[in-house]
């Protein structure tokens, strides 16, 4: 490994503990985000993408959520061990997050300008007038005229709200931007605009980005690295081109296989057979084995370790652990 990751998640386990039982949302998850890069975190609904993001912010709702074990390393400090006070200095300042649904992510009774200014006032030592100026500038940056500073969220369309959310997230020039399905709730035409905007801003502000999505098209457009998530763990982590050219994990192969090809005339789509496992009752061994076309005996017993195929590509699958050297976690 030549470069040092900016954010490095090691063997993270997050459980939601309720009276009905324990939901194992995140299981031995490993993830690395490198400076200046965009990492795509891809997975089905319920794979634990949002919980992963919230863990990075240390905002997993507790109760019922608990970080059981693991490390989230950022600038040589473990975010899971920081005090609330220290975390508040990081949140919104060094690590920001764009949430999934812009319709509900803004406070309906505060002007959009004030909502942007709030973060600036919290993290930058500036007076009210300067903060107001910076908040207005941020509005312009995301393509909203600053005259609309004093308007309320209900006066904005969905795409505009998402721009405001982006402005809030970028207002303090964070090192890491976590975007949790930022375009899922938007129209396709607006999606492209918002993605382009984020891509440009990421370059301008020199931000590293974690792009959470279930849209492989988005990943192909904006990401440098991709992590594929299944049942609360990253099963494959690779440089984008490597992943698209040579997907290793059977689940990843299945994902790419399930994208219909416009040029081929197919009668049936090719889904991955079976359903995501119930996170309160995960299969033993590799969580994907019940759906895996290549399942072996060992898959039912042992949770696969990370197999490094090269510097930019690793996979959690027993198919590869036999012939490659096993990395020591």
């Amino acid at each position, binding site marked *: 490994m030549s470069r040092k990751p900016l954010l490095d998640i090691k063997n993270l386990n997050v459980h939601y503990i309720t009276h009905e039982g324990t939901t194992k949302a995140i299981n031995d998850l490993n993830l690395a985000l490198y400076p200046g890069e965009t990492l795509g975190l891809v997975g089905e609904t319920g794979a634990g993408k949002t919980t992963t993001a919230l863990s990075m*912010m240390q*905002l997993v709702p507790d109760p019922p959520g608990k970080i059981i074990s693991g490390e989230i390393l950022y600038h040589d400090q473990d975010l899971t061990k920081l005090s*609330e006070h220290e*975390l*508040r*200095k*990081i*949140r*919104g*300042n060094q690590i*920001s*997050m764009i*949430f999934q*649904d812009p319709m*509900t*992510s*803004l*406070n*309906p*009774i*505060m002007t959009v300008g004030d*909502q942007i200014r*709030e*973060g600036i006032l*919290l*993290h930058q030592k500036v007076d009210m007038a300067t903060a107001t100026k910076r908040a207005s500038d941020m509005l312009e940056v995301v393509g909203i005229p600053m005259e609309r500073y004093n308007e*309320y969220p*209900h*006066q904005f369309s969905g795409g505009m709200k998402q721009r405001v*959310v982006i402005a*809030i997230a970028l207002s303090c020039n964070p090192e890491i931007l976590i975007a949790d399905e930022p375009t899922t709730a938007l129209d396709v035409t607006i999606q492209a605009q918002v993605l382009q905007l984020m891509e440009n801003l990421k370059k301008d502000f020199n931000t590293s980005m974690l792009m959470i999505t279930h849209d492989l098209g988005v990943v192909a457009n904006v990401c440098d690295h991709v992590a594929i998530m299944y049942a609360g763990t990253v099963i494959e982590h690779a440089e984008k081109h490597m992943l698209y050219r040579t997907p290793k994990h059977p689940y990843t192969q299945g994902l790419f296989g399930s994208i219909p090809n416009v040029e081929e005339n197919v009668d049936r789509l090719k889904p991955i057979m079976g359903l995501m496992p119930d996170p309160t009752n995960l299969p033993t061994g590799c969580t994907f084995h019940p759906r895996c076309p290549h399942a072996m005996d060992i898959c039912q017993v042992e949770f696969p370790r990370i197999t490094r195929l090269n510097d930019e590509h690793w996979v959690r699958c027993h198919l590869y652990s036999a012939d490659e050297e096993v990395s020591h976690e």
Partner: protein
Amino acid sequence: MLRYIARRLLLLIPVILGVALITFTMLYFSPGDPAQMTLGEQAGAEQLEQFRELHGLNDGFFVRFFNYVKNAVLHQDLGLSYRNRQSVFAEVALRFPTTLKLAGLGVLVAVAMGIPIGIISATKQYSLFDSISMIFALVGVSMPNFWQGMLMIIFFSVYLGWFPPSGFTNFNQMVLPSLTIGTSTAAIITRMTRSSMLEVIRQDYIRTARAKGQKESKVITKHALGNAMIPIVTVIGLQFGYLLGGAVLTESIFAIPGVGRLMVDAIKMKDFPIVQGGVLFIAVTFSLVNLIVDILYAFLDPRVRSQYR
């Protein structure tokens, strides 16, 4: 906004006319002869006839109602009390501030207790504090007002001697009645605040505020409370109206000279003009409080504000 307020004030006219008609009709059909009740058993036929003539009791229903409204509108005259021939308007107006003060203090007590307790309960849901305050809230709504008042007199006036058991002129005298009248409302406001806050703090924008690095206390006061206030304000407004009408029992227990007691005495004596006047005063105040609540909505919620433009 001003146009909205003007429209709402105009709407008060049919509301008040309606209230007047309903009370008038109910009193008209209630059994018993006011003349006989007022003048006593030994009054002669001539005296009774004189009384009826003076108060216009010989006229028909519609004529009487029309005259009543006409006098009320043109001369602010709500008739004369049967008993002491005083102006009803003056009699009620004299006592109304006391009732208003009692209800107002009750609401104040309720808000001062209910909102903070509700907020803490919501932020520490299922904690010991939450359970205890919810039990108290349950007791608070369930306990009849008059019974609580009497218990408080026994405990705080008779045993401890901290507060006087009657009157309503100085601060010490106001403590027990205000607590008595405010308790059930406090309980209702506590529960409303708790549930409203619980709903709001699960919203995405609260998570956004936390993600900005805002302090939890600020997240609650700045982002959550404002949004949670709308249903709470509704309940406060309704409760104020309820307390105005419900002050009767508290006023009787603590011997407070308010509209409630005046009306109860008037009902016993069939002194209809007083009853009618008291109801009208309360109805008008209730309507005004409702208007204030609606204006507060606009103040609290920009979405409502933009509808009024």
